[in-house]
């Protein structure tokens, strides 16, 4: 008789506790609000520089600036995840609780995604104001926000993975920021145009910019969705592998 494979489902209740704990850490301190506030202000400042010159209710420039904002925000938020737990020695406490590495990793990721959703919500009044000045394509805007969300998910999970290798938040932040910047730049025309065609085409398939661009144009393909869903899952797996190497993370 063939045995049916046991499917293990992740118990969500402990994860709710972990997510709430991290959300409280973010929103109970002024630093959290300050981060979102500064993020929004810088984005608006960058966008408004050309907005009135062009004189069109077009959010393309806004979403182009947002990609860099996402890069910085994901690096800043991810540096706090495991580095802070290690610095405050609370990682040992977490590891002593009946939670699996998968639950710990997922909880950290979900917290970051919730914070980013709140960031998106904080930007909605601005989109509404622009829509009052002239007609905007709400479908396109939703697609662009979805693209930025997926971009954030990929960058943020990468940042969490990197944070497991450092004990200093600033170094973790700078390493994540710099490496993401290089990876992102490698997929832009600035680099791709200078490479042989074969290499250029291969690299273009993994270009963050190209996949994000599809969302900005409102025409995301299945390959774009697969790209952005695969990366967080890949980094989730890498985070779990790293968390299982107990000697290295304490």
């Amino acid at each position, binding site marked *: 008789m063939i045995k049916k494979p046991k499917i293990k489902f992740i118990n969500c209740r402990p994860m709710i506790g972990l997510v709430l704990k991290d959300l409280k850490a973010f929103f109970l301190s002024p630093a959290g609000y300050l981060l979102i506030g500064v993020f929004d202000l810088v984005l608006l400042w960058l966008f408004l520089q050309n907005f009135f010159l062009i004189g069109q209710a077009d959010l393309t420039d806004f979403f182009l600036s947002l990609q860099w904002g996402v890069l910085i925000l994901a690096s800043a938020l991810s540096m706090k995840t495991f580095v802070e737990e290690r610095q405050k020695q609370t990682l*040992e406490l977490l590891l002593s609780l009946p939670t699996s590495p998968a639950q710990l990793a997922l909880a950290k990721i979900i917290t970051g995604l919730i914070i980013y959703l709140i960031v998106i919500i904080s930007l909605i009044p601005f989109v509404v104001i622009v829509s009052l000045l002239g007609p905007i394509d709400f479908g396109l805007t939703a697609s662009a926000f979805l693209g930025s969300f997926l971009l954030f998910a990929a960058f943020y999970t990468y940042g969490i993975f990197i944070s497991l290798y450092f004990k200093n938040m600033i170094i973790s932040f700078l390493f994540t920021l710099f490496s993401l910047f290089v990876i992102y730049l490698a997929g832009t025309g600035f680099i791709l145009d200078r490479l042989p065609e074969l290499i250029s085409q291969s690299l273009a398939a993994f270009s963050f910019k190209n996949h994000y661009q599809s969302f900005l144009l409102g025409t995301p393909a299945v390959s774009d969705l697969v790209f952005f869903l695969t990366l967080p899952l890949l980094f989730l797996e890498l985070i779990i592998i790293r968390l299982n190497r107990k000697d290295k993370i*304490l």
Partner: protein
Amino acid sequence: MISLKKVSKFFGRFKALDEITFRLKKGETTAFLGVNGAGKTTTMRIINGILDPDLGEVKIDKYSPADNPIKVKQIIGYLPENNPLYTHLRVSEYLHFIAQVRNLPGFPHRYKHLFTHMGIAAVWDQKIEEISRGYKQRVGLTAALIHQPKVLVLDEPLSGLDPLQKEEITSLLKTLGQKTTILFSTHVLSEVESLCSNIIIIHQGRIIFAGSLSDFTMHQTQIEVVYQGPKKLTNLILKDLPRLSLHQIKPVSAKTWHAVFNLAAGRPDRYLKSISAAVAENKGLVTQLNIRKQSLESLFTKLTDKANDQKAKD
């Protein structure tokens, strides 16, 4: 309840634990003694499944932390060294977080008796960063106890506390020890005697003593005799009582000697009569006869020095 069999742990080339073996029975309170860096925290982390051993076998109530990490963590309540807490949370929020992660329903009503017993009601709504160290320790202990663990593993629960706070936590541990198996590490030896019946001493990753506290102190007891008679009388005493060994002998006056014997095993009070009889038989006169109990600190120092010498010889 806790069983470690030939457990070794390496950090790179450094051997942090060297084939350590011990067993703790249900309901026992055991002190885990050792100087800093002896391997106490590593052992406790292995018991909890926070670290994996490189060699050997660990069993907690029949479960291996490597094979059943979640089950083991449900059985154990753990207070890590330095009592790390999420200080941005209020006491109530922190304990709610622990209850949620441990999947415990009915917070806080179901656990009110525990909170009352641990004396944290006064700081219930305060932020952890604002409360005293003694209260923080209570909160850490409450978090370790909230799921009614069968085993309590406490890494340095008394460190950094003032004498009053130490007394509070010691009395709490005494009460808890009536129902729970407790293993607590410390290098503050003065608290050990009042708290536990068993001790395990670890030094440079090796267990150098594991047994009851009374065995430990009994075996290290000295008997002090002041007698009138010849010096060689001590040899005759040793001949009659082979479990004694001569620690030192000094002249008090021309025919009076002050001898100190080490007792290898047995109750020292039983030896007092035997020594008096042996001296009288050999025409001597005992003028003073005392049992000299050594402090745990001096015994501990002696044992670790002995272990150092042994390691140097090896």
